[in-house]
């Protein structure tokens, strides 16, 4: 399942997508949980009883601001969450 967390508003689309099929059998030891400086990721048991990672509810509405530190306007080459997620389950839309 591709779970998209975030929102779209007048300024743009801000979604973090998590491929839960890659997430269920995480081979990175849930490194995303600690890699994110804002600690936005959390492990839950989803509706189909699979243990997966999601974005904490309050962060879903403030992603553009929460991720700003990792995305400086001067440019960036990698994001901590995506780098930590070696199975490649995490993607950012912006």
């Amino acid at each position, binding site marked *: *399942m*591709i*779970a*998209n967390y975030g*929102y*779209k*508003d*007048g300024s743009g*689309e801000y*979604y973090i997508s998590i491929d839960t099929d890659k997430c269920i059998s995480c081979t990175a030891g849930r490194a995303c949980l600690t890699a994110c400086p804002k600690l936005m990721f959390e492990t839950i048991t989803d*509706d*189909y009883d699979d243990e997966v990672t999601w974005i904490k509810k309050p962060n*879903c*509405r403030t992603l553009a601001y929460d991720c700003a530190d990792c995305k400086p306007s001067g440019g960036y080459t990698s994001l901590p969450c995506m780098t930590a997620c070696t199975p490649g389950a995490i993607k950012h*839309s912006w």
Partner: protein
Amino acid sequence: MNAEVKADTLPEKKEFWRWQENVWIDETKDWKTAKIITCGIDVGSVSSQAVLVVDGELYGYNSMRTGNNSPDSATNALQGVMDKCGMKLEDIHFVVGTGYGRVNVPFAHKAITEIACHARGANYMGGNGVRTILDMGGQDCKAIHCDEKGKVTNFLMNDKCAAGTGRGMEVISDLMQIPIAELGPRSFDIDADVDAVSSVCVVFAKSEALGLLKAGYTKNKVIAAYCQAMAERVVSLLERIGVEEGFFITGGIAKNPGVVKRIEKLLGIKAMDTKIDSQIAGALGAALFGYTLQSKKAAA
């Protein structure tokens, strides 16, 4: 000095936004002969539904407005449908709560997200050909992909603002002083297509609608502009996850042809028809989840 206003001299406030609440029971079925009775309760931000499923089939439901207390809303919704068929809470084997207030359903055995429940409910209502679901709820909008069993494969939700939701339509209904059920049909009663209102925020859209009225737009033209804006907004949401054949719309806005027809036109796909009230999809899915869980429990 402030003038004193007596309550009985105030004009009666009409609730144009108020939609039809209803209770329905399938009179052809007898719940007393059923092996498994399950219930799904969807406590949404605007409406609450209680759905009864007997032996895996829809038996009855109650759809009403959510009050200011989620447990009370859940209790009232369930009590309404149980009263209609003479059922008691102890007759129900499994209750699943869903929606915003799912964790506040006092008698629920399990809480499941509305995303999974809408997919399951749409699968029941539209058949196993349903692949893309648009749930236009009271205060959020969800785009969901599911497989032939109604299991979610991709989803996206926007609950940051009320644009593109039922609450936004209620605001326009009140502003235009036209009953909400008439908005859709009236949006087609115009001479030519109109541009969508440009604002993506309901508050600004309301201001823009007032501006259009002052500029000489008829009410119908303003409604059409708002319906078009709502359609464009949810289509942009759908396009993010992609739209496949087997397109199904759930939620209260599915009853508004002014929005549905415009979405269909923008997507180039016709939404699937159903005889079941689109507003109960979440609660129906929850009850069906309950049926599966109870069946497993009984078999163990």
